[in-house]
């Protein structure tokens, strides 16, 4: 063999097999290595380097989601249950069975219908490991990758919005405590923000919705979630590779960058890492690719498309030709520089590439179209009915394996895990100085204004953004979500929101899942979204799942997702998991991240003229709070700033919340509600302060009027009970409002005043007064 190397596995023992897996960064375990040995001993030969790498990529956690597909034996307080995580999540969508969910869990992204002509696709990815190593490049390619996912859904959707959610360590983390090779959170933060900014802005796609969480748990492993929303005609949702189609590679050239990204992402971060896993994006190439692809799509020049993400060509072609078979000629792949080995070409994760499947009669037209737009386009093989993946380099076969083995041969994994539910105890913490505590909560990193980051992103490009990340007076107020008007000739809109809060997970991941789902729905509904037309995406980032306790928490969280999504009647349309986010120190100690669940949601709005924003509109208007406050301060920001780890975690109450939200939606649609903001992180007082900042107005609030389980000022101000909204109603419309909400829990708590301060009363006795200036100073104190 001239170009590839034979890997000796037939005559080696188990120990050597594991060594081989570790040495070559394959991230395969012994069972899997043995299965490969078994397959090749049937063929009577050793695998080539290309074959074994290709199998490792296809079977990696990143591509195959081994853990989510595995059968898990789960013990909760001694009660045994067998389940498969992915099935548990997909069940929700199957049970709800909405006809507007047109492509779920099978393609690159989830797709729902806007109307009979148009559909919208949404996908959220994680790019944690690369961002921890090279923040600028890692975050940039994260966005680039998820944009390509949207380009590769169905026959291609047009990206119109990016979202981003980050979790970092505290910005003032002491340098001395950082191990070698780990970048400081401040540096990661700056790099990640610039990476997302540069890629999104240069692609001409607005970046509009997101969140940033800071916690010590993320010092060693930061989390970077990137999402993209795209629109596409309904008839372009289906794709099918046809036998005899040519394999066409378009976009950027192939280099040695990013080799082993997929297997690497299945491993933990260690101190020595090869340069080749780093990818650096080139948004200009991707922009050109995007534009020409959409033209080709509308001319029906190709039958199927997928992006070259993790695993590179091996994963893209392997996936497309799963049921047919493919022959690839690697020497036809355009390279950045000479000297790449065949397996490197096949596995490289060079960015900005897509693979098309093109019928014979269209090949010529496609090539001339791409050439005219100066985008590289080369035919590199053909899908032939062989049921095999055959790869040639010049005259040598470097890979020849059965598609069935590649995609179905993976030995099933079995896991066992435990979860011990701790009893939640009430912790009565009394505030010594209410005013000071309010200002401390407002200046906490998680709550305070992220304008320095958000204003770096372009959120207007494309001219579709109706409700922006900032609203109100001088654009200072913060929005719950973002509303887009995707079409020039229709008032239909889409609204995006998200929910994330790892702090509840410390107490119980089950309720964390429910709370994240509800927060996401609340965000969407308070912008004017219809609670009946919301679809959500799940993104799990978890620590060391080989630890039975960590896995137990994950299972508990997935159960929460499944139960609560069903109760809120929202389907999951797509999802992704990133596991093994842990760091192994020199002494072998394993530090896992806090289990983190991000729920991103997309909703449809019938008319974008009938939405509302969070800022107070006019003095004299009446303020109501919808929903009831409970004594649930566990995991709240108020307890966090006071270092209290106990307490009762908020409990979602789906039936009540859903019926309230339906009425809220009709209230917003009919113009009764002037402004609306949901109560989440930081409790009622944070919500009111944010509304004041947006409106540049003050308010008088009688806190003893708030409908609450207990009459305690700390609970009423800071409890993060779900299912609550603060709304502003004009005096003349109060009757209409009360009629609409007559069967719901709500209370009238105060009014908007011109004087720029908040005056808090308790049974008509003034308890505190904070000026808008002080509030703004605390809330906008974050400087990066």
């Amino acid at each position, binding site marked *: 063999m001239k170009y590839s190397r034979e890997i000796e596995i037939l005559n080696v023992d188990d120990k050597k097999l594991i060594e081989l897996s570790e040495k070559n960064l394959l991230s395969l375990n012994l069972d899997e290595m043995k299965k490969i040995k078994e397959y090749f001993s049937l063929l009577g030969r050793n695998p080539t380097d290309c074959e074994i790498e290709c199998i490792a990529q296809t079977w990696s956690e990143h591509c195959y989601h081994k853990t989510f597909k595995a059968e898990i034996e789960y013990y909760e307080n001694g009660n045994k249950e067998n389940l498969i995580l992915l099935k548990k999540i997909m069940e929700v969508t199957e049970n709800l069975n909405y006809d507007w969910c047109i492509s779920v869990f099978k393609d690159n992204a989830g797709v729902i219908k806007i109307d009979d002509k148009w559909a919208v696709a949404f996908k959220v990815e994680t790019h944690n490991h690369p961002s921890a190593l090279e923040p600028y490049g890692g975050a940039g390619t994260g966005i680039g990758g998820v944009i390509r996912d949207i380009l590769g859904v169905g026959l291609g959707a047009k990206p119109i919005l990016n979202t981003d959610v980050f979790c970092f360590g505290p910005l003032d983390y002491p340098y001395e405590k950082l191990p070698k090779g780990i970048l400081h959170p401040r540096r990661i933060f700056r790099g990640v923000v610039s990476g997302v900014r540069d890629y999104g802005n240069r692609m001409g796609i607005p970046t509009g919705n997101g969140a940033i969480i800071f916690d010590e748990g993320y010092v060693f492993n930061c989390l970077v979630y990137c999402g993209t929303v795209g629109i596409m005609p309904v008839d372009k949702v289906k794709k099918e590779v046809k036998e005899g189609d040519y394999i066409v590679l378009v976009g950027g050239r192939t280099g040695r960058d990013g080799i082993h990204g997929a297997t690497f992402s299945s491993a933990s971060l260690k101190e020595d*890492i090869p340069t080749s896993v*780093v990818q*650096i994006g080139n948004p200009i190439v991707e922009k050109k690719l995007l534009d020409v692809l959409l033209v080709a799509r509308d001319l029906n020049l190709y039958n199927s498309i997928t992006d070259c993400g993790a695993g590179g060509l091996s994963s893209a072609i392997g996936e497309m030709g799963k049921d047919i078979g493919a022959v690839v000629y690697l020497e036809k792949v355009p390279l950045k520089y000479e000297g790449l080995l065949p397996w490197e070409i096949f596995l490289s994760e*060079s*960015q900005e590439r897509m693979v098309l499947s093109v019928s014979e009669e269209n090949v010529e037209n496609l090539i001339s179209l791409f050439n005219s737009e100066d985008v590289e386009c080369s035919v590199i093989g053909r899908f032939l009915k062989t049921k095999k993946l055959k790869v040639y380099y010049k005259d040598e076969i470097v890979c020849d394996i059965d598609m069935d083995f590649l995609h179905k041969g993976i030995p099933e994994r079995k896991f066992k895990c435990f979860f011990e539910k701790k009893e939640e105890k009430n912790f009565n913490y009394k505030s010594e100085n209410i005013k000071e505590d309010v200002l401390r909560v407002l200046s906490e990193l998680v709550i305070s204004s992220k304008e320095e980051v958000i204003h770096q992103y372009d959120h207007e490009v494309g001219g579709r953004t109706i409700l922006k990340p900032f609203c109100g007076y001088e654009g200072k107020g913060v929005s719950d979500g973002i509303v887009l008007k995707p079409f020039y000739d229709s008032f239909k809109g889409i609204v995006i929101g998200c929910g994330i809060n790892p702090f509840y997970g410390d107490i119980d991941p089950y309720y964390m899942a429910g709370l994240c789902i509800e927060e996401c729905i609340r965000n969407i509904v308070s912008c004017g979204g219809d609670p009946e037309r919301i679809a959500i995406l799940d993104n799990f980032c978890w620590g060391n799942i080989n630890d039975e306790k960590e896995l137990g928490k994950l299972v508990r969280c997935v159960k929460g997702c499944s139960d609560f999504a069903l109760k809120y009647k929202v389907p999951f349309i797509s999802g992704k998991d990133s596991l093994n986010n842990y760091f192994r120190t020199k002494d072998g100690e394993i530090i896992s991240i806090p289990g983190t669940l991000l729920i991103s949601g997309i909703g449809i709005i019938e008319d974008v003229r009938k939405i509302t924003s969070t800022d107070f509109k006019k003095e004299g208007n009446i303020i109501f709070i919808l929903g009831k406050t409970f004594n649930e301060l566990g995991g709240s920001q108020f307890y966090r700033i006071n270092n209290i780890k106990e307490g009762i975690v908020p409990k979602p109450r789906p039936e009540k919340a859903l019926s309230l939200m339906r009425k809220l939606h009709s209230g917003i649609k009919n113009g009764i509600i002037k402004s609306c903001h949901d109560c989440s992180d930081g409790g009622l007082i944070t919500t009111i302060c944010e509304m004041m900042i947006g409106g540049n107005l003050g308010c008088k609030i009688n806190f003893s009027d708030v409908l609450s389980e207990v009459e305690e000022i700390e609970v009423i101000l800071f409890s993060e009970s779900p299912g609550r909204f603060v709304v502003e109603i004009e005096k003349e419309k109060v009757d209409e409002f009360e009629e609409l909400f007559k069967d719901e829990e709500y209370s009238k708590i105060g009014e908007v005043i011109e004087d720029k301060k908040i005056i808090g009363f308790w049974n008509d006795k003034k308890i505190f007064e904070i000026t808008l200036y002080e509030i703004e100073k605390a809330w906008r104190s974050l400087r990066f």
Partner: protein
Amino acid sequence: MNDFYIIEIFKVKKNFDVFGEEIKKSIEELGIKGVKEVRVSNLYKIEGEKINRKICEKIAEELFIDNVSEDFDVYKRKRGKRNFFEIEVYFKEGVADPVGDTAKRVIVESGILKDVSVKTGKKYYIKGKIRLKEIEEICEKILVNNLIHNYFIKWKK
């Protein structure tokens, strides 16, 4: 014969150097005091046949600089600035360099040269009362990611 030149692009003196100021702030956050001034310039290493100083000056003037706020220098080797630590940072071999690729395309498409290779880098000038050890710390913690960058420190006593 392949030859090479380096084009250095920097902000004209009277203009505020935003990136330099940002790095100065980061250095202060590290707890290193005594830095008076940080200036940043972009480096383009142009390599290929038929390269000479004149062509590189043309490339810099016509393609790379903003005439209002920036100026350039073309050289093969440059004598160090007095009182300044100079740090040059380049990508390691094999790491993608999109800016370099685009610069190369522009040079070829504008018809100045038929073929050329362009590598980009950054040069930092740091002035102040600091020791070499502190400069090394600044490099490791702020300016350089060892995974993808090579760097050199130059200083004149």
